[in-house]
């Protein structure tokens, strides 16, 4: 008796598996909201496990000059086309300013010269695109944690949001502007820097001039380019698509450690 039940159960399982595997209803299953919410369990599991094993300050591997990629592939926007950005660019970013605001005690604005005058960290790290390729570059910039200590986070601040000068997907409602967000663990991580220099030269436009984020324990799409404004927030739900980043709003994981 039990063997019949087992076999029947197996057959049901096998049929579900077969339909899940694209023999027929595959894409319908992929697109169902229930499937998506079940699959999202994995993201939480990966983040909790990695954070547990990492502690807050385990460092990403740092490489040597000999390991640098001969050509560092530029990805995403390589030339923002909004007039404001072009104006900054034509003036060598001398009129550009980084705004730090939101849930902070002392909002501030910093010019590129201000940022370059601050103590910097240099690190040779690997950039991993979600697509699968990697490139190694040398980054110099201001540790984000130091800046956040200067402006003073309010107690309710939980995430740091990075607003960018590139509209990666043209849209009427403004939902196509690039943005990213990280939590405070990553924001205060020693290797999390706002890089103004790459491979010993001013950051090129293709790589996010004048300033890009480096969060070294996560994938490439977290490394927001063309920064204009940093905002401390209590939750991510009210910004853009509500998932905490341009690619996150389009189905990718917010925790991009894997």
């Amino acid at each position, binding site marked *: 008796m039990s*063997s019949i039940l087992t*076999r029947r159960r197996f057959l049901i399982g096998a049929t579900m598996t077969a339909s899940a*595997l694209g023999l027929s209803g595959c894409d319908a299953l992929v697109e169902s909201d229930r499937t998506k919410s079940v699959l999202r369990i994995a993201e939480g599991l990966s983040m909790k496990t990695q954070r547990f094993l990492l502690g807050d300050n385990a*460092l990403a591997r740092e490489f040597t000059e000999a*390991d640098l*990629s001969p050509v560092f*592939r530029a990805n995403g926007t390589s030339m923002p086309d909004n007039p404001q950005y072009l104006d900054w660019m034509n003036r060598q970013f001398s009129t550009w300013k980084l705004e730090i605001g939101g849930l902070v005690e002392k909002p501030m604005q910093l010019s590129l010269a201000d940022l370059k005058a601050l103590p910097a960290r240099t690190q040779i790290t*690997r950039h991993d695109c979600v697509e*699968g390729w990697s490139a190694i570059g040398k980054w110099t910039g201001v540790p984000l944690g130091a800046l956040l200590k200067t402006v003073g986070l309010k107690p309710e601040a939980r995430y740091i949001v990075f607003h960018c000068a590139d509209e990666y997907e043209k849209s009427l409602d403004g939902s196509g502007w690039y943005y990213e967000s990280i939590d405070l663990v990553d924001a205060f991580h020693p290797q999390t820097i706002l890089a103004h220099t790459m491979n010993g030269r001013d950051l090129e436009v293709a790589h996010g001039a004048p300033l890009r984020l480096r969060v070294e324990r996560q994938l490439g799409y977290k490394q927001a380019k063309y920064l204009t404004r940093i905002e401390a927030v209590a939750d991510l739900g009210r910004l853009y698509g509500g998932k905490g980043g341009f690619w996150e709003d389009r*189905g990718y994981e917010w925790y991009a450690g894997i």
Partner: protein
Amino acid sequence: MATIDAGAATGRTVIYRHSLLVRLSHWVNVLCMTVLLFSGLQIFNAHPALYWGQYGADNDPSFISTEAVEDGGKAKGLTHVGSLTFDTTGFLGVSDVDGEATARGFPEWLTIPSYQDLASGRRWHFFFAWLFVINGFIYLAYGLLSRHFRRDLLPARDELTPAHIGHEIVNHARLRFAKGPEARHYNTLQKLTYVAVIVLLLPLMILTGLTMSPGFNAVAPWLLDVFGGRQSARTIHFLTAFSLVAFVVLHVAMVILSGVFNNLRSMITGYYAIEQEDKK
């Protein structure tokens, strides 16, 4: 059915071969490895090129890649392996999507989802990777505690002699499968293959997978040294996946050739019928 009945008439014995936990973990594994393979090919399609070393992108030399090129107004799919180039139009590089030749690494009937969607492919891959790892740990713990490994999978010393192994290879090649008392246990080739999959290929998949994770690199930087870098790990991950595909093809072929009903029943209900030895 007929052969089984005939077997029963001549004194067939039925043994309890696979415990419930082995059966369950086997089928969970079938599900996981199937989804992992097809979602993995979806992920591969996002950047269909493999490199060796710490880094690797478009401007670096790859040693396996697929590519779509224009050839007389028609899309042609090329696959590069080292310095060799193969025309793989219709399968690799270029294949039909809604009747139209489209640039993509693996064709839509081999990816989850069928259309190009890296975000969904990743979500499927990581969910089933977790299930696979949890299932694997339960199986390993059971295998050690219940002595399943020692009793059923570890070859005895006399099974490892060249003569014995040579004898088994000849029997396999002639498709002569064990009967009588010998059929109560896995043969040596089976044991060695299963052990290689359990202790070598599957752990290699997990470790090379983890080596691609920038977060896990900070947890265990030594894995980068073991595999020679993230891009090497990605390549090994891909090649090991195809070793597992080869194993599954062989495994299913042997299941079919050595009695598909009996084998399937034993992995579903646990019971396996042993036929008497031929009277010589």
